[in-house]
């Protein structure tokens, strides 16, 4: 399991890939950061909060995370190296977990870059550290959930680009589940609405960004991650059975 993890990390960090992704993420983050500061100027009484910024950050994830995950399995298949992994004494489950952990590591690296902004804010102003930590935990869960989704899609196709595009669509849809459940049409049926709403991730993220760490939210994100990783595992196994 460890060799695969290591190899994945090498493929990210020995190439400009991880750095470019982290740089792009920082650039986008800085955009929200500067607009956030611009808003502050009128009302100086408020301590600077990253809460609102993190909302825009999860929209950037829709474009960034698929780039991270698109190659995970699609490229292995394209190169013909899937055979190597499948015929080595490592179980498919371990392959999935190793690749997931590698993606999460790169993602943490991306998040680490953004710590730059709270640090310079703290130098010139005030940062509510506890809330910031909560927001980071929330964003960590959100991103890992997207990674699991992206990996699942990558396991379905041979083309990384296709995996990325479909990933963007599905992640976009996931973001707006709660808005969808609040549309007038769905509100006519309260039961349906409550079912759809229970799948909404954004309200759960909101709790984190407001400084609440609730077990139920963590269980929610954890379950989504586990479900998508299991589907990834099943998709790989199923394709082997169907091949031809």
């Amino acid at each position, binding site marked *: 399991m*460890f*060799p*695969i993890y*290591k*190899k994945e990390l*090498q*493929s990210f960090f020995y*190439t400009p890939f991880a750095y470019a992704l982290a740089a792009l993420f920082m650039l986008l983050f800085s955009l929200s950061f500067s607009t956030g500061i611009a808003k502050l100027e009128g009302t100086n009484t408020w301590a600077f909060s990253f809460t609102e910024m993190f909302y825009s950050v999860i929209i950037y994830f829709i474009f960034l995370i698929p780039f991270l995950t698109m190659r995970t399995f699609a490229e292995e298949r394209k*190169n*013909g*190296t*899937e*055979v*190597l*992994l*499948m*015929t*080595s*004494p*490592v*179980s498919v489950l371990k392959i999935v977990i190793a690749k997931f952990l590698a993606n999460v590591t790169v993602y943490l690296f991306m998040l680490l870059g953004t710590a730059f902004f709270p640090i310079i804010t703290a130098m010139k102003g005030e940062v509510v550290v506890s809330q910031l930590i909560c927001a980071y935990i929330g964003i960590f869960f959100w991103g890992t959930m997207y990674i699991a989704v992206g990996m699942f899609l990558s396991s379905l196709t041979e083309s990384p680009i296709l995996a990325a595009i479909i990933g963007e669509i599905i992640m976009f849809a996931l973001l707006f589940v709660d808005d969808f459940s609040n549309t007038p049409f769905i509100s006519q049926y309260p039961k349906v609405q409550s079912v759809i709403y229970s799948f909404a991730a954004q309200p759960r993220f909101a709790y984190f960004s407001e400084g609440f760490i609730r077990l139920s939210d963590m269980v929610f994100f954890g379950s989504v991650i586990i479900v998508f990783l299991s589907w990834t595992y099943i998709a790989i196994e199923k394709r*082997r*059975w169907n*091949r*031809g």
Partner: protein
Amino acid sequence: MINIENLTKYYGSNRAVNHISFTINDNEILGFLGPNGAGKSTTMNMIAGYLPMSDGTVNICGADITKDPVKAKRNIGYLPEIPPVYPDMKVKEYLSFCAGLKRVPVGKRSKEIERVMGLLKIKDVSGKLIRNLSKGYKQRVGFAQALLGDPKFLILDEPTVGLDPTQVAEVRAIIKDLKKDHSVIFSSHILSEVSAVCDRVIIINKGDIKAIDTIENLEKTFAASLVLHIKVKGDKDTAASIIGMTKNVKEIKKIEDEGNNIYSFTVDLEGDYDAIRDAIMSECLKNGISILEIYTDKPNLENVFIELINRPTKKNGLQELLDEIPDESENNTENTETKEEE
């Protein structure tokens, strides 16, 4: 020892491999021979545990590939048709990744990598990106990967494709050398390669095993049924009956009318050729039939292969063959001629 029983693979309703069973003994090189699309790669993928089988079992050194895949795969080194290399990795980097994947102990890794690189003569490219290597080098890097960790059982799917003649000879020498402490199954559609390297051969076509035997035996079985070509001038029926009645003649396969009372017979023989030839010649002389040509084909592996692949539908005896040639009044004149000679 590797046991393959009843192995079957369906792609949808299309049967790619049909209930094949064989064993690969220790220290044996088994050649897997068949035309393109015969099911070679599918079978190998199933043995290596990449493709699940529709039916049957594969047992590798005591571990079932489906029930205990991790244990079984530890004893396998697999070189697929397309070498499974990462284009973005350097050769040494790639091999060290594979060594980890195959659970070569950390302390032994660099030594093991040096060993396989030396064996396949890829030390000079160890720092190069695999992307920039030629096909032959990629193939050898893939082969090196299969040898890492010294697995007991090697599956090589067309290992010499894309190599130049010197490299082919080298790789063959390596495979032969592996026999000392490995079992090897290797596929090819190049006959000379198989006969040069393998102890036993499996000939497969359209998912069915056509033959499993040593090369000598295959040649012997088919050499026992020599093919005799005789060109005679004279009466066809008489000649046919003479040849047909001769001891050790199995069957007359073909009679061709070449005009001018000349007929070519293609005859399957068994047993001693010299005796048959003498018998036929003396009988023909007695009956006034002159022999213009007489020679035999010795079937080599190539013929065996082609014959097994295209197993011809058998002709139904002599009479049918005779009927194929239009009966002409010439027969009568021939008869009179022979009588006169007598």
